[in-house]
């Protein structure tokens, strides 16, 4: 499903990632564990085709970095959910509108948008906050809205870049539960984190990234 083969990334003459090799199969949950600056976020951007490798190939679903055309990338991203540590919600839209937005921009009809959005908010226990704006939500609630948006199109893989970094332990655990539920439904999860205690609490396959290299591939 997701494979990186001898991937190398350079930025301004500096090696960010070097000879990265790993695979993530359907339904897998994989941590990318490493300190800040290790290259975790760059790796996730490669999977989104936001960046192209300077060497090697990235395979995501039916696409690969060598042959994917610019105009195909949006269609790939519809099947890849993404969440960030800073949530990246639209501050001028309500909770409902933030989630519905992900469905509207890809041309889903109004009725289906409503059905799907309400279903997702209900699953996140946020239905009562659907008319609230992000500034009126807690960090955990905002991340749940971001997760609902990321899962709106039923992605085959969800990329999570430090999703629990700004959250307290209990809220982080809630987010991990949501990710676990999505994974149980068949969505592969690739989660970048530097939080070793979280990885200990929620044990999954782990790839340690240090200095742009995978130290302990499993």
């Amino acid at each position, binding site marked *: 499903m997701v494979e990186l083969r001898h991937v190398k990334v350079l930025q301004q003459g500096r090696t960010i990632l070097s000879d990265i090799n790993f695979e993530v199969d359907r339904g897998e949950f994989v941590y990318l564990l490493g300190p800040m600056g290790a290259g975790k*976020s760059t790796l996730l*951007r490669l999977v*989104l085709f*936001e960046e192209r490798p300077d060497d090697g190939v990235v395979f995501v679903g039916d696409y690969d970095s060598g042959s994917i055309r*610019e*105009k195909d990338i*949006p*269609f*790939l*991203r*519809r*099947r890849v959910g*993404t969440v960030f540590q800073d949530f*990246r919600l*639209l*501050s001028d839209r309500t909770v409902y509108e933030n989630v519905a*937005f*992900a469905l509207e*921009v*890809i041309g889903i009809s109004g009725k289906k948008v409503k059905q799907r959005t309400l279903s997702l908010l209900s699953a996140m226990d946020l239905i009562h906050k659907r008319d609230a704006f992000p500034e009126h939500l807690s960090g955990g609630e905002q991340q749940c809205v971001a997760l609902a*948006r990321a899962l*709106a*199109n039923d992605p085959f893989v969800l990329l999570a870049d430090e999703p629990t970094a700004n959250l307290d332990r209990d809220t982080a655990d809630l987010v991990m539960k949501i990710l676990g539920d999505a994974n149980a439904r068949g969505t592969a999860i690739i989660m970048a984190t530097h939080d070793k205690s979280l990885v200990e609490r929620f044990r999954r396959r782990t790839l340690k990234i240090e200095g742009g290299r995978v130290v302990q591939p499993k």
Partner: protein
Amino acid sequence: MSVVATTAALLLLGFFIQIVAGGYDLSASVKDRVEVEVYLHDGLSRRAALRIAREIEEMPAVAEARYIDKNAAAREFREMFGNGFLEAVTGNPLPASIRVRLESEGNLTARAREVAKALSGRKEVEGVDAGEAWLEALERFLRIASGAGVLLGSVLCLACGFAVSNVTKLMVLGQREAIHVMRLVGATGWYIRMTFLAGGCLVGCAGGVLAGTILALGAAWWTAWIPEIKPLPTGQTVPLLVLLGGCLGVLGSLSSLNRVLRAVTLR
């Protein structure tokens, strides 16, 4: 804010368009009143004079030829200058004439000269007053005014376009968050562009409607100030400004969108 700035720019442009349109109307009406006076010898019969007037009307570039007899000439003189002079002289010294109005298209000075030359040789004609010096001055003034109008209009259009473009650029930049999320969730480049082009067009059209409405409401005030300039009808002004505003809004969005799309990444 975007609509207010666009309205202000289009209001200025709309006002200028009104002035230019009115100016063209004014110059056309002035040209319509250009006349060549053909003075007839005393003693020429009314019948002969009317015949000459008909012949003159057949000439190219002549719109109308009207016979003014000595009595009508005296009446006009009194209306302009009062009774004093004519009362002081014996009889009516004013000659009968044929007043020739020229077609307003083309070079009026040249046409007046042609008419004067054609008629000066006739035995019935005592003299021809074509007012060439005045006509030359008028045409020179109209050429300069027209050229200045085109130049100023072009500069104003560019300035207006620049203002609207900057407004739409700021609007697009202000939506970087939304563009970022659009790209994240898989919106195509075409969809993102269309969203903002539509937005730019809407802002431009809204500005056009407001500017046109303000101009229409203000017409009564500024026509009292400059009565010679008649405003364009609201039915023409508003659609023109809406169209102009819409086009400028789209062009403004286009000019900034590619740059912003390149700058907005998913980092």
